């Protein structure tokens, strides 16, 4: 039995944890370089601000209420994500982090002592009390069903953020799947949904009722597994899970606790390598690398220690060596002797898509300042809002320093940035 815990409007919510003046106000977060909207809270959604809306468009839009805009603050998000994870791990022994704001829990057997939805509500309370962030919980006998349940818990407020689909109430599950558009099913997405629509499959229920072999022949083994998961067969592991939107996470619980620095280095190196591979598979570059380590919160006679550190790179990379180097630097900041570590992991953030590869450009083309063609391409890239390119010979152009004009303080990771409270 799986549960999926998902933080509501994660980036936007993080921005209001230390800003009591922003409670109940519309908040929007922009992509790196202040390019476009990558997160909005509920109130901003009401203002019809869409995901991916370019910043210059939003800046000039007429809005009925003032919207608070922030540049993405991955240091803050990684720190708060780690805290949410730590809280969840205190209540469930088997937790896997899927993305920066989504965690899968194995809650098998919990119903022997507590009702699933009561547990879900306790979990929500616990995370909120320690982080100020609200999570939604969906439960099901497969990860895909848990994700559908979580979608439903957000879609219909009467569930109050917690919905668990139990196998003994198949009708409830089918009712819900009949109301879920197939594009919202985990791993489906708009492209596959379009093709499914041509075959008359528009709801999650219809997909569940499709013939698995037919799906495998016309789509992929991955979608076939989705069909089987919708029918209650758990067959997707986190390794083969559909990629998370804007992060890559590689982490493992250790079979045997790690106490030696060298062993931890090796483990983190391995995760860095795999993460870099996945990154290249997604055709992305990243600029932000976090490493987290933790001991078991359930170990007897052992003080709990969990920590996270991030490295921000000047230029986006997908080179394994760069990612390993950054991961090692981060690990060195949080490694503490004398602990028996139960888990470690790496998270890659702040992606930019392929096509902004300065290095490739220099390899293939000798930059001649007079070359009109080249200039045209450069200009196109520089004005696309997706990134900037410059000539190596010029040194790092000041314009390249990423625009983060509306960056909030690193409230939990920098002494100079901690929140203040008035004495009077």
């Amino acid at each position, binding site marked *: 039995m799986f549960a999926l815990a998902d933080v509501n409007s994660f980036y936007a919510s993080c921005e209001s944890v*230390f800003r*009591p*003046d*922003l*409670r109940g106000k519309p908040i929007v977060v922009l992509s790196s370089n202040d390019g476009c909207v990558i997160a909005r809270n509920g109130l901003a959604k009401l203002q019809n601000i869409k995901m991916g809306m370019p910043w210059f468009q939003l800046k000039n839009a007429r809005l009925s209420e003032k919207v608070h805009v922030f540049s993405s603050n991955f240091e803050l998000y990684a720190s708060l994500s*780690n*805290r949410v994870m*730590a*809280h969840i791990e*205190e209540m469930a*022994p088997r937790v896997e982090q899927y993305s920066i704001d989504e965690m899968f829990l194995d809650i*098998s*057997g919990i119903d*022997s002592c507590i009702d699933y939805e009561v547990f879900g509500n306790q979990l929500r309370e*616990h995370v909120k*009390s*320690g*982080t*100020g962030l609200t999570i939604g919980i969906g439960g099901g006998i497969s990860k895909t069903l848990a994700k559908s349940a979580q979608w439903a818990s957000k879609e219909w407020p009467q569930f109050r953020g917690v919905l668990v689909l139990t196998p003994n109430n198949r009708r409830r599950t089918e009712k819900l799947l009949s109301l879920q558009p197939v594009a919202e099913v985990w791993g489906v997405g708009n492209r596959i949904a379009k093709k499914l629509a041509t075959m008359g499959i528009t709801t999650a229920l219809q997909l569940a009722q499709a013939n698995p072999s037919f799906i495998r022949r016309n789509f992929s083994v991955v979608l076939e597994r989705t069909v089987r998961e919708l029918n209650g067969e758990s067959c997707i592991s986190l390794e083969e899970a559909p990629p998370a939107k804007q992060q890559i996470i590689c982490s493992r619980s250790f*079979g*045997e*606790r790690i106490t030696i620095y060298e062993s931890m280095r090796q483990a983190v190196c391995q995760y860095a390598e795999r993460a870099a591979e996945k990154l290249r598979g997604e055709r992305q570059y990243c600029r932000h690398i976090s490493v987290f380590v933790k001991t078991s919160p359930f170990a007897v006679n052992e*003080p*709990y*220690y*969990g*920590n996270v550190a991030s490295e921000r790179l000047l230029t986006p990379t997908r080179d394994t060596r760069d990612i390993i180097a950054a991961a090692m630097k981060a690990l060195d900041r949080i490694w503490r*002797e*004398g602990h028996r570590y139960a888990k470690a992991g790496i998270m890659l953030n702040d992606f930019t898509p392929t096509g902004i590869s300065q290095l490739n450009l220099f390899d293939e083309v000798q930059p001649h300042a007079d070359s009109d063609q080249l200039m045209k391409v450069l200009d196109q890239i520089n004005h696309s809002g997706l990134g900037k390119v410059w000539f190596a010979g010029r040194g790092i152009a000041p314009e390249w320093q990423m625009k983060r004009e509306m960056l909030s303080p690193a*409230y*939990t990771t920098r*002494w100079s940035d*901690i*929140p*203040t*409270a*008035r*004495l*009077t």
Partner: protein
Amino acid sequence: MLTFITPAPAPETQTSPLFTECCPAGFPSPAADYTEAELDLNDYCIRRRSSTYFVRALGDSMNDLGLHSGDLMIVDKAERAIHGDIVIAEIDGEFTVKRLLLTPRVALQPMNPAYPTLYPDPEHLQVFGVVMSFIHKTRSAG
């Protein structure tokens, strides 16, 4: 009512350290296993890392607690505030440091006696967290 306790379907292997010392019954060994590590302020000040945040005090320092402007407060957000606790309260969109009273009614006492006590509506009172300890640096920052 019978309570059924079911074994975990996939139990994780548990390892336990093996004690190489024999413990004579009735008398604890003076050489009993203990870890010696350098004292760490984190262990002294922080009970729950995952819900602990650092907040800096700012403003008029006249108070009986000895809490000065610039001091570092260690705040546990998950701690349920009790009567007499120093808390970070959210008032008018700002974090403020107050002493919380719960009897005879909910009240927020200012750090400086020259300022008025507030009597917020208990339903709408927002407390960010409880100040568990604070650190005052005796030498000014250099």
